[in-house]
């Protein structure tokens, strides 16, 4: 292996590290510009006949998916907007568990955002118009941490609250099945 090759490998690695780091730690205090919003069309996977490919991931997902400040904001919103009242700290209660591998309406961030925004018939209220789109995306980003979806570098181990289960930094990543059987 030539030293130049090694050097360029190193440079590439550093660059990746830089980009990843910037992405995961970037703080965005501004919401999305007016006019952009949560995709209403991010429907559950199960809608697609034969389980064929759904639509491409919403490009805005990247801004939230592994972004630590967004997840932290989402965590606070999860507590304050009473998500915790129904879904507890992921284990569920009035609402279904969010830390397991069953996603009735799809576990992709845009699908989760869409579920939050539009509500779902069996009791999930619609939050569009009650939360801003930015908040909904952040919530969706946090919800995915409950089943260990995002990178462990961008999640908080715990909140300053009663200890509720294993630290999120150690949550194993659950495969995201959609589950018709979970639906009633």
């Amino acid at each position, binding site marked *: 292996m030539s030293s130049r090759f090694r050097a360029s490998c190193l440079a590439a690695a550093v660059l990746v590290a830089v980009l990843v780091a910037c992405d995961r730690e970037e*703080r965005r*205090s*501004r*919401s999305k*510009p*007016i*006019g952009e919003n949560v995709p209403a069309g991010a429907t559950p996977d199960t809608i697609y006949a034969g389980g064929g490919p759904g639509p491409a991931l919403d490009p805005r997902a990247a801004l939230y998916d592994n972004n630590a400040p967004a997840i932290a904001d989402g965590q*606070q919103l999860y507590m*304050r*907007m009473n998500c915790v009242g129904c879904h507890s700290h992921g284990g569920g209660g009035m609402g279904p568990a969010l830390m397991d591998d069953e996603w009735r309406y799809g576990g992709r961030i845009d699908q989760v955002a869409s579920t939050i925004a539009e509500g779902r018939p069996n009791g999930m209220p619609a939050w569009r*118009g*009650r*939360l*801003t789109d*930015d*908040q909904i995306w952040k919530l969706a980003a946090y919800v995915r941490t409950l089943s260990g979806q995002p990178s462990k570098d961008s999640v908080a181990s715990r909140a*300053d609250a009663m200890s509720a289960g294993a630290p999120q930094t150690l949550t194993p990543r659950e495969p995201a099945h959609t589950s018709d059987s979970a639906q009633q």
Partner: protein
Amino acid sequence: MTSRRAAAASLPLLLCACQYQTYQSALGDAGVEDRQFLILFWIFFAICAAMYALVIAFLVAAIVRRRRAGNANVVESGRHHESHPLMRTGLVCWTVLVSTGLAALAIASFIADRSMAKAAAREQLSITVTANQWWWDVRYNSSDPSKTLRTANELHLPVGVPVRIQLRSNDVIHSFWVPSLAGKQDLIPGRDTDVTIVPKRTGIFRGQCAEFCGVQHAHMALVVNVVSYGDFVRWWEHQLQPAATPRMPLAQAGYNYVTQRECAMCHTIAGTPASGRVGPDLTHLASRRSLAAGTTPMGKGNLYGWVADPQSMKPGSKMPTVGLEPDELHAVVAYLETLK
């Protein structure tokens, strides 16, 4: 007052401090605690200034003596390990002087501290202040729970009445500090702290969070309005009134928006369905002096700016930029302005 004169005589630079506004100044002298602080401060100042003068005098003397000794760059041989006997006497005197001075200061400090602690015992009004990132939740406690009053970012205090302020925090450590009235006290999650204030004169005083608490630590102020007892009781009664239903169509539209949409998720407006507890209580928002915990003065223009895009006024604030349409914005501001 003698202490003030002593200060004026001691250092001209500090004089200009007295000319400044006492709105948010430890030299404000508007509370019993702050008065104690000032007396003690000037005592310390005088003694320390005297000490400093002594050191500088010694330094000047040493330099002047050197000039007399000439410019010889030689090490004294033989006797140079021995010290001048005068110096040894000086050392002993210096030690005694320093120790006495410090002991005197420590005793003064202790006496002042005790008298402050005694003052803290006589509470007549109890207020609970809960700090949040980055605003103050204020609850006036009453033995009659239905007279409990919740407001935010603004304290009204009756003059001359010892007020015990219980301090709590919902998130990180903050510090409650209204310099003109009293010293600071931290608000620590999981711990109960309190501070007792006895305002001495009416007026408006500004306080500010004094412990670094995150992005918007700089914009976490509160206004303290010290008023006469009668005014205070009237203010309390007024604040207990629920918000009036607006009559103007524009404000009515604003009412509908505020109570049904994003705003109601976080804010309470008594008398309406909006009962959120995440953000400040807005029931009498328009009667307050500042907006967003002292970020900006209350006023129509600032209200527009704040509601339209809080994130540019106070970046990182928990209040999101909702992205209201212009007609919604007009309506919401029109409604908020009715919340006197």
